[in-house]
């Protein structure tokens, strides 16, 4: 029934107002749902674009020192101020973005995929496999991360190779555990029993049917974890296990800012805010995806 038909039915303008209100609310609901995903993607895309297209946008050499202009507060010339060697922090943040965004996204995706697959199968299969995976997760989570990274960096040498291996080798355990926990509940559900009776192979049941429902919490968490991996680089560079100086990298920038925090707050805070911004972007994407996957409680119920 078209709106005006209802208007007629509801007797003139009063009806129209009701229709309009109703339609506005539904539209608003749908708009907000899409907005989360769009805004998230926009934020990440803009930051990524600025970082990867830095030279084109007129950002000069990030390592250009100007000792006389050290620790200058934010100004027009240096929107993010300058660090202890007079280098422009905004340029370093922009050039650093390339390293951090790639590192964070790749390690998170690798860990997410590896962990969720292993966890899902373990949770579904149960028995010795589940026990083995669980205990392996215990070992990985319990193992002191710094000792692990230190040993790897001794072999792989400086640069982020060690950090890549270390982070993936540890954070997969997070996703394995989450996927397993969700699978424990999911495998009891009717549609899984039904799939079994239809003789589907385990692989098909787990990956095509169970996984989408198991993966939602992990998606939300993975988007948050992306930021954690960037901050992890901060503590690594503080221990001398991060990128090779003077390469700009967000974690190192923040670590450098710690010592001058009380006098030059901008050195650590502004790069920190960029990390927060990226964190917001990714988490909005995470929520957007998770909302799309999930049962939309607002429209279920009566036919």
């Amino acid at each position, binding site marked *: 029934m078209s709106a005006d038909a209802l208007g007629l039915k509801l007797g003139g303008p009063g009806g129209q107002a009701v229709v309009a209100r109703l339609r506005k609310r539904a539209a608003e609901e749908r708009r907000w749902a899409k907005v989360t995903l769009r805004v998230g993607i926009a934020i990440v895309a803009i930051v990524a674009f600025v970082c990867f297209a830095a030279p084109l946008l007129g950002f000069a050499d990030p390592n250009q020192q100007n000792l006389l202009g050290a620790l200058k507060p934010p100004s027009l010339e240096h929107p993010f101020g300058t660090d202890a060697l007079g280098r422009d922090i905004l340029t370093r943040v922009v050039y650093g973005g390339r390293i951090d965004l790639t590192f964070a996204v790749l390690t998170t995706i690798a860990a997410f995929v590896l962990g969720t697959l292993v966890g899902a199968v373990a949770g579904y299969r149960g028995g010795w496999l589940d026990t083995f995976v669980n205990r392996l997760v215990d070992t990985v989570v319990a193992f002191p991360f710094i000792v692990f990274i230190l040993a790897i960096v001794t072999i792989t040498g400086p640069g982020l190779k060690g950090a890549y291996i270390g982070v993936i080798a540890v954070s997969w355990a997070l996703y394995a555990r989450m996927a397993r926990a969700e699978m424990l509940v999911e495998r009891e559900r009717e549609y899984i029993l039904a799939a079994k009776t239809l003789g589907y192979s385990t692989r098909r049941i787990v990956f095509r049917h169970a996984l989408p429902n198991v993966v939602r919490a992990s998606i939300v968490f993975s988007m948050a974890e992306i930021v954690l991996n960037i901050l992890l680089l901060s503590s690594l560079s503080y221990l*001398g296990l991060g990128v090779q100086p*003077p390469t700009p990298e967000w974690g190192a920038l923040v670590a450098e800012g710690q010592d001058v925090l*009380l*006098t030059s707050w901008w050195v650590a805070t502004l790069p920190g805010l960029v990390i927060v911004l990226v964190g917001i972007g990714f988490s909005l994407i995470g929520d957007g995806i998770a909302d799309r996957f999930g049962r939309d409680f607002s429209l279920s119920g009566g036919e």
Partner: protein
Amino acid sequence: MVLVLSIALGVTVTACGGSSSTESTGGESAESSEGGGASESKEAAEGSEETPGTPVKGGVLTFARSEDTSPGLNPIGLPTNGSIFVMQQIFDQLVETEGDKEVHPGLARSWESSKDGLHWTFHLREAEFSNGEPVTAEDVKWSIECFANPKIDVSYAFLAESIKDVKIDDPKTVTIDLKKVDAPFLYNLAVYAAAIRPKKVVEEIGEKEFAQHPVGSGPFMLKQMVVGQQTSLVPNPHYWRKNEPYLEEVVFQYVPDANTRVLKVTSGEAQVANEIPYNQVEQLNEAEGLEVQVQDTYSWSSVFLNQTKPPLEDEKIRQALNYATPKEAILESVFHGFGEVSNSNTPKLKFWDSSVQPYPYDLEKAEELMAESSQPNGFKLELWVPGGEPAVVQTAEILKQEWAKIGVNVDIVPKETSALISAWIEGKGGMAATWSPLGNSSDTITDDEIVGLILNPDAGLHSNGTYYDNPKVTKMMTEARETLDENERAQIFSEIQQIALNEAPSVPLFFTKSLTAVHDEVKDFSTFPIGWWPLREVWMEG
């Protein structure tokens, strides 16, 4: 939460009293005079105090320190600076060091040596340990023997190699016979490992237990030690300097984070805080009731060059690197002017010669040398730096930019600190390395020990990983050790300093300064170059 953020950021600026105005390019804060005053008489060591007030008893001094006393408080063992500086408040040595480069009477009222310098007789003063037991010649003999025994005193026994025998002449006199003339011997007796310890107590409870319950004859005694948190000392009632110490209690709090130390001292929770970050000195000085004392230390920083790694065997290249190092600019930006341009491969000890000219920053000379060197069109230099030391990494970053001007492409390699030092000393490190200036500091006043470790290949450290080997210099070192004539020793060490500087086994950077924030109500507080503070002189006003 945002509200909190903005208020707090605002607070950052106001609470610490300094506006985040542009950083003034230099201007040393009121540099206090050289530490140290006459040994016996009481006179304010600190120049900045107008009228030397008369000391008043009482008051608890809370000291926010960057190190803790985790290794325990036993002079014989493996103490870190964290423990050593606290032990100097608890123990006495036969002779004491102070701000100046001389040795002063400690438990030995006076001493004299035989003409040939092989027999030293010490006259002990009336003194008691903090448990009321008198300090006997037996205690002194036993303590010195422990100090000289490499099995027990693993780290510093080599300082007492020259001791042949310790004889008790009478209950108040002890004579030490030496195998050979050992000029720095008297100064070495001032080192913390030569502390006089109560023989009965140590033999009764054992070295390990003694580290937790030390008994000494110094101005203070241990009240309580909570490892990793705080260590508190109270006055030793039996101390031989009757009217000292003035403080009622000293509480060393372990505060590893520099910002937290600053906040603790600005909030008044602590009256003193050490290792203040260079960039915060000016702001703290502006805060009323607070002053940052800047004092000399026996620490130094430099870039060590491994001569076995080509092309660093070429002296011209090493010299070129020295000429191409803008020490003044680095000092201003990274260290905010707090430090002194170094003219030596070793720290400013007793026989340091201030007249030796440091390498000026002279790019043409550097380019000239590079042109004449074995690598005229430059080379790649692998420079190892430790983690967790922003100032050191920043210095390396400046050197990378500056040395590139003479064709040297520096590849900065960050390393975990312990891995770096071990690998470097064993020659398995990179081509060059630099590490925390506080990591290299001397525990004795005389140059013999440090010059030996840094410039003498036979000391087993490959001249601290630089593989510097100049037989003439090595011979001069042994000569210096075997002559008692101070002027001659000064002459020899000055020559060594000049030769080594020319042969450039490393790129000397700075002599480090200690930065300690002190509240105005804390009087007569000072820090000796060797690192510890004479807390027996300190008193609190009102």
